[in-house]
């Protein structure tokens, strides 16, 4: 043989190569990755616990307390710092120093003056505050309609005075995980069941189609309420599980329909003729060609899970509060929609960008997996 053939990279790798060439989907992907980073490092971006501090001669990382409360060193509780790091560090140890998160705000509480000042009564019996050094400019968060975006509260505050920016930063975890995890569950179940039903047909189809119908018929609300009634602490994970476990039926039906159509095609017969097994035909031959209608509900599903979470919060069945999620923020903005526009605008924009991103990725994926599109120089 004269020339060594270039390595052929396989379907998914090739798709990725194609995907990479597309500008918009790549931007969207970058956005999602950025979101993931924000979610991961949320306490570093917005929080009230120092990232790193020197206190009484040792170095601590109180910020870890956001991930797991035990990771915040117990010395702070013993010294009754009680979440008032700015002032208490200085009060307890004048030599201490600390590196603070980008924004001194907390998604779980309102920032109050006592965080960075001690209340004193002066000789005239008036109340004054002694501020921690370097914190003199800080103000406590306003609440409700007074909480317009400001230098300190970039995106304003909500009714309770919780910082919107901090809530959104920490809420990106929910936004990301609720969407992706629930839809991964739904897609995995939906595609598998739809593929089996559509391809195998016969009694398998009869049984699986009934399963789809049963799940479709059981009202999701009943399931969610039953679950919420049962659990003491409803976490986002539970919601993801419910959304995922109930949300696959549409995907399954679409997959099944597509499989019904594609299995009649000649190349499937050809695959059978070379002795390919069912699993192989389903996964390598049919599924690849059935992606178009299935990618849409998945990419929208990721986005709509975020909205579902918001809707559940609206009805009072969301995750246990305080649950900094975009949905709950939006929801809380509803009560005074004319005044607190920032509670609609920022989370709304974030949801929009995310919906857009997932859809662009979905579109990109669809194009990237379609070899007939690949040459059309983008």
């Amino acid at each position: 043989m004269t020339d060594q053939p270039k390595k052929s990279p396989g379907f998914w790798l090739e798709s990725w190569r194609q995907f990479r060439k597309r500008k918009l989907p790549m931007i969207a992907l970058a956005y999602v990755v950025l979101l993931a980073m924000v979610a991961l490092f949320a306490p570093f971006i917005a929080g009230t616990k120092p990232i790193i501090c020197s206190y009484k001669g040792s170095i601590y990382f109180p910020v870890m307390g956001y991930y797991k409360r035990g990771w915040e060193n117990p010395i702070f509780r013993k010294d009754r710092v009680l979440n008032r790091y700015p002032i208490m560090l200085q009060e307890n140890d004048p030599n201490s120093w600390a590196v603070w998160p980008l924004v001194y705000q907390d998604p779980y509480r309102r920032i109050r003056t006592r965080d960075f000042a001690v209340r004193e009564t002066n000789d005239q019996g008036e109340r004054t505050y002694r501020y921690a050094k370097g914190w003199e400019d800080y103000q406590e968060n306003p609440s409700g309609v007074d909480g317009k975006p400001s230098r300190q509260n970039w995106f304003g505050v909500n009714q309770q005075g919780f910082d919107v920016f901090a809530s959104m930063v920490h809420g990106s975890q929910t936004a990301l995980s609720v969407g992706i995890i629930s839809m991964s569950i739904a897609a995995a179940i939906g595609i598998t069941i739809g593929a089996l039903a559509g391809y195998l047909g016969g009694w398998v189809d009869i049984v699986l189609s009934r399963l789809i119908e049963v799940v479709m018929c059981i009202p999701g609300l009943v399931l969610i309420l039953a679950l919420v009634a049962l659990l003491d602490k409803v976490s986002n994970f539970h919601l993801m599980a419910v959304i995922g476990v109930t949300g696959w039926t549409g995907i399954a039906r679409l997959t099944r329909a597509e499989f019904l159509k594609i299995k009649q095609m000649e190349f499937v017969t050809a695959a059978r003729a070379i002795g390919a097994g069912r699993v192989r035909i389903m996964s390598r031959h049919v599924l690849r060609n059935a992606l178009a209608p299935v990618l849409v509900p998945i990419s929208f599903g990721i986005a709509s899970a975020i909205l579902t979470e918001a809707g559940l919060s609206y009805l009072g069945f969301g995750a246990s509060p305080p649950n900094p999620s975009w949905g709950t923020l939006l929801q809380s903005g509803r009560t005074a929609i004319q005044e607190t526009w920032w509670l609609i605008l920022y989370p709304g924009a974030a949801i929009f960008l995310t919906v857009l991103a997932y859809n662009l990725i979905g579109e990109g994926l669809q194009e990237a997996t379609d070899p007939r599109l690949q040459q059309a120089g983008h």
Partner: protein
Amino acid sequence: TDTPAADKAGAAPGDAAAEDDAPAKPFKLADLLEPFDPPPLEEVDANANWQDRPVRDGLQVMRELLAEQPAPEITAAEALKLKNDSPENNAKMRAALGRLAPKDGSGVDHNASVTRHVGGDLKSTNPLSASSVTEFEYGSLTMSGILAFDKNFDWFATSETVKSWQTSEDKMVDKFVLRDDVLWSDGTPVTAHDYEYSFKAIMTEAVVVPAVRSGVDELKWVKAYDDHTLVIFHKESLPTNTENMQISLIPKHIYEKTIPADPTLARSKEHSRLEDDPVVAGPYKLVKRTRGQEFVLERREDYYMHNGKQVRDKPYFKTVRVKRIEDFNTALLALKSGDIDQMELRPEQWVTQTNGDDFYENNTKVYDTEWVEFHFIWNVESPFFKDQRVRWAMTYAVDYEELLETICYGLYEQSRGNYHPDAWMFPKDGPEPVKQDLEKAQDLLAEAGWEDTDGDGILDKEINGRRRQFEFTLTTYTTETGIKTATLMKECLDLLGIVCNVKPTEFTVMQEKSRNHEFDAMMAGWGTGTDPFTNQNIFGTDEGRNYGNYSSKRVDELFEQGKREFDREKRAKIYADIHMQLWEDQPYTWLFYRSSFYGFNKKLRGYNFSPRGPFGYSPGFGSLWVPDAAP
């Protein structure tokens, strides 16, 4: 609009669910009552040594009560120009706008109509089926009973229906002489027999009554000696007997035919028809009803006119439209545009959205304190809250300042225990409001043995040989204030090293868990009864509403004493003692008293407030009026 289901049920009386209960119990009127043979009237009269009780006109009572208060500083027109942005303005506006119409009804626009707003649906128009606020509201407009209480919870017989009211000296018998000019809306006169029949129907096992049996079942017997003479026999001599005599009234001449055939009150054709075209005895009559949406009442001319003579005050409105708008934002928009004339405002609506000209253009707003307190209930049986010190630690942990200022928008007052400070039974030197004191809380917890021994930041303690983390669930209704308050508590407890999981819970689950005492802690609220004895079922050992399992011998004894004591002064002392005992034991952490906020259309006048809000008493809604030349 009859469905086969209704027909079938109508044809086959009895309840489907009870079908297989071996020999289905035949319908027997008043089968829940102990047999009793009321003595002849002469005998009753002879033994009673009657003492007269007040027979009053609700509006007149109100006029007198208002007269005791200082005269309004400003006129209504001035009040309507004011903005309600300070307690002073609120007081002025309430006084000015609360003025009642003159007794003779002059200056009242009797052709006016009003559109009210309710949050819940009118499920049934049958007085026996009433169970929720909306139905009792409907009842107060369409029915006129024999008894009522004023804004201070003082009882009287209503002069619209009653000529005289007497109680025997031993408080075991009450006698009413009824007026003969009250007619059902179908023209039949209302008689004492209607009351007797209503009572008996309520006390029939087969008849489905969700709520109205309570209280009435304390009565021994109700007897109509003739059309006008109604005598009520009690089981015991108690100050609370008066309340129990509130019998929901139904027309005997109609229901004695229909109830035996359909004790469910709803399934038969006839009952379905009555649902939408009820026969009423009160000032207004139902003319239209769209379930889940609205119902419309119209003034009955034969209510105040009898044989061409005016025998009662003419009700002020021609039509009363009651709309159900669940969504408070929509309701507020409707109020602003004049689509509805009155609504209860949410606290956040009070502080936002109702301060601009768009609100004041058509409306004004007022508020008043209600005797509704909110609290955390601690389940005394739970391993965490058995210890009184822990409960106190909880009380000290609450950041009241934040709670009142931010969550309650500075609108509410901090609660100081079981009874309201304005109430007559509140102790003279009652407890002072608690201030947050985390150090004290920490110390109390430490005393109770809760300490963070493993350095994970969470308090723990050895209970029954096992180390337990201090982690509990705080259940709350899915209301905004509830969730916010619970969230604040979580934040506060977090500082103490206690994990508190906030769990907003739907009403039914909350109720179920409460009844079964399956909770650690719960955010809840109690409204007030008309009498302090009603709190017995909240704090008495093993009582129905004692969800937190609180038990104190002393409190139990005091309640029993209070129930039998007729003297107001002595009762006040007894209930004050209860108050103090409860405060010491802290089965609850009392948080705040809720106020009620109302938006009214500018045309409306005459609204006043009782500790239960503007409508839950006599005359309540009946005092609202629209001046002749409404602005």
